[in-house]
């Protein structure tokens, strides 16, 4: 049963952009409204996913800040924050609000302007999604969080840097087919494996997602109204959210994120589907190892087999389950607050058959997975073509 329906999507290009935060929001939101064939006067509520505007652009109170710029003066405007999962949390709030019956049409935007800071500055801001006192003060960075995971995964399953590299190569290849992706550069397995620029061993630059600016937007509406707006409706049929232990050192196995498993179970149950039923997925590949672990936690592959599946090409376009056809966080880019909304935009394009050169054939069911921090927050959404 549909919880809410998507009637409009839009996104800026992701990358190092000259546009301001407001310009990004206006661009994405107006595209989504135009795609839905409605105007701001038709919107009942506005949710904004944003992680760290106060650090990146010295601005707080961002939902109200941006609402009037997109013609929503007077509309309830709420900012949602859950580290890198901020965007999908905003989507979920919109779903819940529609499902409650309170609103008929809701605008969701995810946006982040990151490139105002240099790499070191961005590293400091992102680190705030970990425990400042017990981790960050000792020198923890986000690449280090996932380096811990990668090292343990390799130890546990005998995986190698080749398995990680396969994810980077695949997602770069996919991004080449996405005109809105940050990175348009083909890379080879040899290039990745010979990279000496380590970030946090065993992760090199090629294992890390990108520091990007960008915004994405969706218009959600009550399922019974969707067909008055458009014929090719995509329904959201499952939503799962879970919290997990906040500190990476408290993660029991380190090769799995319990919040992902819980969120996925809830979403699959609600949608009444199995992992096998998913045709296309946009997963949280903030680091190559994160995609591998997510494919296992979401039930696509058995523990220890996600890396092998990536290396065998089973997760690339044309494979049995295309993962991150957009290029993912790795190559499409990762404007933090925008990411979770952007994943939904990509899945909707795939289910409508509008994904161009990166189209997954006959995709009917799509999944998004958005992970916040070191697994403290996870959201899984399931989309279905009506």
């Amino acid at each position, binding site marked *: 049963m549909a919880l809410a329906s998507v009637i409009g999507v839009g996104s800026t290009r992701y990358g190092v952009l000259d546009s301001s935060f407001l310009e990004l929001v206006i661009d994405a939101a107006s595209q989504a409204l135009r795609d839905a064939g409605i105007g701001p006067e038709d919107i009942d509520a506005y949710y904004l996913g944003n992680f760290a505007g106060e650090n990146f652009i010295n601005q707080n109170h961002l939902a109200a800040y941006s609402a009037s710029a997109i013609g929503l003066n007077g509309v309830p405007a709420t900012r949602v924050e859950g580290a890198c999962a901020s965007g999908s949390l905003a989507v979920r709030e919109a779903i819940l609000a529609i499902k409650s019956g309170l609103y008929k049409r809701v605008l969701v935007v995810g946006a982040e302007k990151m490139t105002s800071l240099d*790499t*070191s*500055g961005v*590293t*400091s801001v992102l*680190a705030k999604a970990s*425990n400042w006192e*017990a*981790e*960050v*003060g*000792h*020198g*923890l*960075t986000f*690449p*280090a969080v996932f*380096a*811990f*995971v990668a*090292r*343990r995964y390799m*130890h546990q399953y005998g995986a190698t840097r080749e398995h990680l590299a396969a994810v980077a190569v695949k997602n770069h290849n996919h991004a080449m087919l996405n005109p809105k992706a940050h990175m348009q550069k083909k890379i080879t397995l040899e290039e990745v494996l010979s990279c000496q620029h*380590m*970030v*946090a*061993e*065993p*992760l090199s630059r090629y294992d890390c997602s990108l520091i990007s600016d960008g915004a994405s937007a969706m218009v959600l509406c009550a399922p019974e109204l969707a067909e008055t707006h458009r014929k090719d409706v995509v329904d959201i049929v499952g939503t799962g959210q879970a919290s997990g*232990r906040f*500190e*990476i*050192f*408290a993660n029991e196995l*380190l090769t799995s994120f319990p919040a992902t498993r819980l969120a996925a179970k809830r979403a699959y149950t609600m949608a009444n589907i199995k992992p096998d039923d998913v045709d296309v997925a946009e997963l949280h590949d903030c680091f190559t190892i994160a995609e591998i672990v997510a494919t296992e936690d979401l039930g696509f592959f058995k523990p220890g087999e996600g890396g092998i599946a990536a290396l065998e090409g089973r997760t690339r376009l044309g494979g049995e389950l295309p993962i991150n056809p957009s290029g993912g966080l790795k190559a499409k880019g990762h404007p933090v607050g925008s990411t979770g909304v952007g994943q939904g935009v990509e899945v909707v394009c795939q289910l409508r058959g509008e994904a161009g050169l990166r189209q997954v054939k006959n995709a009917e069911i799509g999944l998004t997975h958005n992970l916040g921090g070191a697994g403290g927050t996870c959201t899984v959404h399931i989309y279905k073509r009506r």
Partner: protein
Amino acid sequence: MALRMTVYQCDECGLRQLIPQGYCSKCRSANSYRPIDLEITGTVFSFTRVHVCEERFNSEAPYLLAIIECEDGLRLMGRVQQPVEHLSIGSCVKLAEFREGTPIFRAMSCL
């Protein structure tokens, strides 16, 4: 006297944690955590050498960070001071000092 560190232990189930919880993470007992001072020894559960870091740590990079697993479920994170080629998952370490609040571990022979 050997260096000690304050951690927290659940009165009900004995679970030890670095950060006290209002409800025990294992048995869910309420307000059951008590501070205890321990000498910290454990094994490396995972580790990394950090090259790209916050500016304030630049002069120390690259540095070794590890997740240390100790008795009764205690886990914590700290720096490790020893050559990286001698460090692996399962290496035995002990808390040697605090530097500006950061626990520094050194290798020891496994018991």
